[in-house]
């Protein structure tokens, strides 16, 4: 019951926010705070024993409305709730056009994303997968930069094609063992794992295409920089902190157990693509002047590393990946919030026209520096633990090229330091560029950023809660 409330609370608050005339923002805050409380409680529980919920849905098909929260799901639900709360807080004083639709859609997308993380029935999973994308489509097309409509459409077509290919694979797997629980996680993984390796190799791409587009993995990424740039920042946060995690999560939850031979066959290919993504993303980030594009490409590089760690298929790699999924979500939320604040105050995202934040808005500059350190994964920030474990995992992987993989992926860390510090230098230091609105952070923004920065430092110094939460899951996958 508590599990389904995590989905229905944002859904209900979202509908109320649509109908409410003026208090949409308050509804969004209430909804996300309620989810935050529940998912916090859930995480405390799920670290020991996974929680489940199940009721019949469509008997003719054999699908159930069944949810499961183990450590990984609970952690990602917690991340979703934290990010939503922070986004609402940070935008408390910002004027957003048509707030009722905006916050209503935001809450609907939260419901969809949470559902993806909780569903343990593959058709239900697919439902939420699409339910998450539809509100985001409207959010990206309605609010944002000038080219937003065309850019969003490209994004939508990409993800929709991916989803439909996944649908073909889902039908195929479910029809192998039709019955009362044809779509359950247990049945899908059993049916898939029993398939011949040849069948698994082509089914792999039907599934993985959808996830690779969502992450995005290197050649499937072309929607990403444009969409991140054109969407309004709260929506970009939803996209980059939460929706990309849907792809990684689905790889770990569904793809690995369902098609083990397919994964084994393609894992080197995927790691090579990921590593190309790391280097490519890092170099492009280095040459950007637009802040949003810089963060977008840096996110591409980070996702590449996470994907490589997943396909290294080792226990420390997966464990580190799960921890990093949480921490990346926190860090990138902070980065986007700072970018948004810079844009609000200086009226530009062009780094050549920025500078002097340390004198103009000192509190913001402090937060920026801390988040930059976390982005580089400096020790004592939360980025360090996960990244270290992921490198460890890649090094341990059974692939014959594991040392090459690690060396080239390690290049990403160095490049990451270069572009992140360049960004800090250009925005925070130097002479003060003229500000449109000359003030430091507002109360809501301070609250949001303080929360983020506190998490960055706390989880950097004491990552044990996160490690405990996800440890069981990693151990079950790779004993």
């Amino acid at each position, binding site marked *: 019951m508590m599990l389904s409330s995590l989905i229905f609370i944002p859904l209900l608050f979202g509908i109320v926010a649509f109908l409410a005339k003026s208090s949409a923002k308050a509804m969004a805050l209430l909804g996300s705070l309620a989810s935050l409380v529940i998912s916090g409680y859930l995480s405390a529980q799920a670290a020991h024993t996974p929680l489940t919920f199940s009721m019949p849905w*469509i008997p*003719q098909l054999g699908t159930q409305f069944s949810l499961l929260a183990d450590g990984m799901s609970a952690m990602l639900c917690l991340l979703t709730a934290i990010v939503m709360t922070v986004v609402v807080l940070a935008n408390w004083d910002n004027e957003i056009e048509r707030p009722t639709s905006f916050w209503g859609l935001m809450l609907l997308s939260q419901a969809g994303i949470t559902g993806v993380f909780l569903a343990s029935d593959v058709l239900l999973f*697919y439902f939420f997968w699409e339910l998450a994308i539809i509100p985001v489509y409207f959010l990206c097309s*309605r609010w944002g930069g000038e080219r937003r409509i065309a850019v969003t459409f490209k994004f939508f*077509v990409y993800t929709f*094609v991916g989803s439909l290919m996944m649908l073909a694979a889902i039908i195929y797997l479910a029809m192998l063992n039709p019955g009362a629980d044809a779509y359950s996680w247990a049945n899908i993984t059993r049916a898939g794992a029993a398939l011949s390796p040849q069948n698994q190799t082509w089914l792999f791409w039907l599934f993985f295409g959808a996830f690779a587009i969502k992450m995005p993995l290197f050649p499937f990424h072309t929607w990403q920089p444009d969409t991140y740039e054109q969407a309004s920042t709260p929506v970009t946060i939803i996209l980059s902190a939460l929706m990309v995690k849907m792809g990684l999560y689905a790889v770990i939850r569904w793809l690995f157990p369902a098609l083990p031979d397919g994964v084994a066959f393609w894992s080197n290919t995927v790691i090579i693509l990921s590593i190309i993504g790391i280097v490519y993303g890092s170099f492009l980030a280095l040459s950007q002047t637009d802040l949003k594009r810089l963060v977008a490409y840096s996110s591409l590089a980070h996702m590449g590393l996470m994907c490589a760690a997943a396909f290294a298929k080792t226990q420390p790699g997966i464990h580190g990946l799960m921890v990093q999924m949480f921490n990346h979500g926190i860090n990138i939320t902070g980065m986007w919030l700072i970018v948004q604040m810079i844009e609000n105050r200086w009226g530009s995202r062009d780094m050549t026209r920025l500078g002097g934040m340390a004198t103009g808005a000192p509190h913001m500059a402090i937060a920026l520096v801390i988040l930059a350190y976390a982005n580089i994964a400096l020790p004592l920030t939360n980025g360090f633990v996960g990244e270290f474990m992921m490198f460890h995992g890649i090094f341990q992987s059974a692939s014959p090229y594991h040392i090459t993989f690690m060396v080239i992926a390690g290049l990403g860390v160095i490049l990451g330091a270069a572009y992140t510090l360049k960004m800090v230098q250009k925005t925070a230091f130097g002479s003060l560029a003229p500000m449109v609105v000359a003030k430091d952070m507002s109360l809501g923004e301070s609250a949001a950023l303080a929360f983020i920065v506190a998490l960055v430092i706390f989880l950097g110094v004491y990552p044990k809660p996160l490690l405990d939460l996800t440890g069981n899951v990693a151990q079950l996958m790779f004993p």
Partner: protein
Amino acid sequence: MKAIIAATLIGVLMMFVSISVKNKSSIVASATILFAALFGINIWEVVTAAQNTSGAQTFFNGMLSFDGFSLWFNMLMTGCSLLFVLLLGNEIAKIGNHVGEYFALISFILVGVFLLSGYNNLLILFIGIEILSIPQYILAGSDKRNLKSSEAALKYFLMGSFSTGILLMGIALLYGATGTFDTIGLRMLQTDALNPMALAGIIFLIVALGFKVSAAPMHMWTPDVYDGSPTPFMAYMSTIGKVAAFVAFLRLFHASFGSLSSHWMLIVAIVTAATLLVGNLTAVFQQSVKRMLAYSSIAQAGFMLFAVLSVNAIAWQGIIIYAVAYTVASVGIFAVLVKLKDYTYDGFNGLARKEPALAFFATICLLSLAGIPLTGGFMAKYFVLMAAVQQGQVMWLVIFALLMAAISAYYYFRVIIAMYFKQGAPELNSEVSNYDKLLLGVTCTLVILIGTVPQFFLHN
């Protein structure tokens, strides 16, 4: 059977109403009441059939037989017709001076639908197809002052007669091969010693029925006829008229030719692929939403052909759920379309600002047509594709169909983009009353219900 008699009587009654009543709105009101009564009769038939365990009821020496499935289908289609009359009745009244006759023709179409869902004999199939088609020829030309409407009627009539000839030829060949018109008798056709005459007959039937469901390459008439016809009647022809032909298609090919599927499977698979390709690709290039919907109805037919292709029980559930989901969503989007003066995409620009409720309901219907989860269109596509996957030989076609579904998102979302993200001042034909909003709300609720709890619409 009671429903056939009742629908015929309603048709006759409406003709008398049209002579004796001059006030258009009272004609619409009486038609609504009569269709509601017909719906009630259909529900009654379903309920009594459920209590009666002796199996299908047969009539005319077994030429017609109504089992639970046919009655269920008839009930759903009558329900959709009622929804259609409720949503578009006032628009029908604006088309011409013979309002009563239009409703009479619609109830005659329903007689055809009922015959096609229950025929057991190729002669009844023929009669059913004709009863279904002839009123549609007339309705297509009902806007007499409009040259395009007359053109549509003539084109439809000529092409339709031609396909009827092919249908008769196919029936004749099958009779020559087996000596029977009976669909049960046709099951005697053996796979190993299949008479070439019978095979030719089956191919003729694929062509003739393919014409009625506007499957490529027999689809050429569709865009012009639908575009030229008055919009409310296009809504009816492209939904209920089409899905009834599909049920006839399924009934014959599953029940009688199911064991021969290896002979016709490939032909139907190619027709399906061609239909999906032509429908979706051509719809992309349309500038008028009405014409886009005409091509999209071809594309949707491509998905329904999957039910014909997969000879199994899921296909029957698939065609039911597809029929309802597609009809409800299409009727909804047409009810929005008739409100607008300009049928081009630009005519939709800025509708969300002017009429938020109308735009919202249109969006739900379009999402359903595009097959987005949570809407009926998704469940419909899901069921027919599932049937095809279970059938086992056409996985390539399933993947192809899903790629085509992605293309279809392009043209459906163009309307959504125009409504929500473009600036403009759309001109409306008439005020959107609260009554319209209520009915559209009911329609969209149905769309969502089909998409979330399809079991209530399936026949168990």
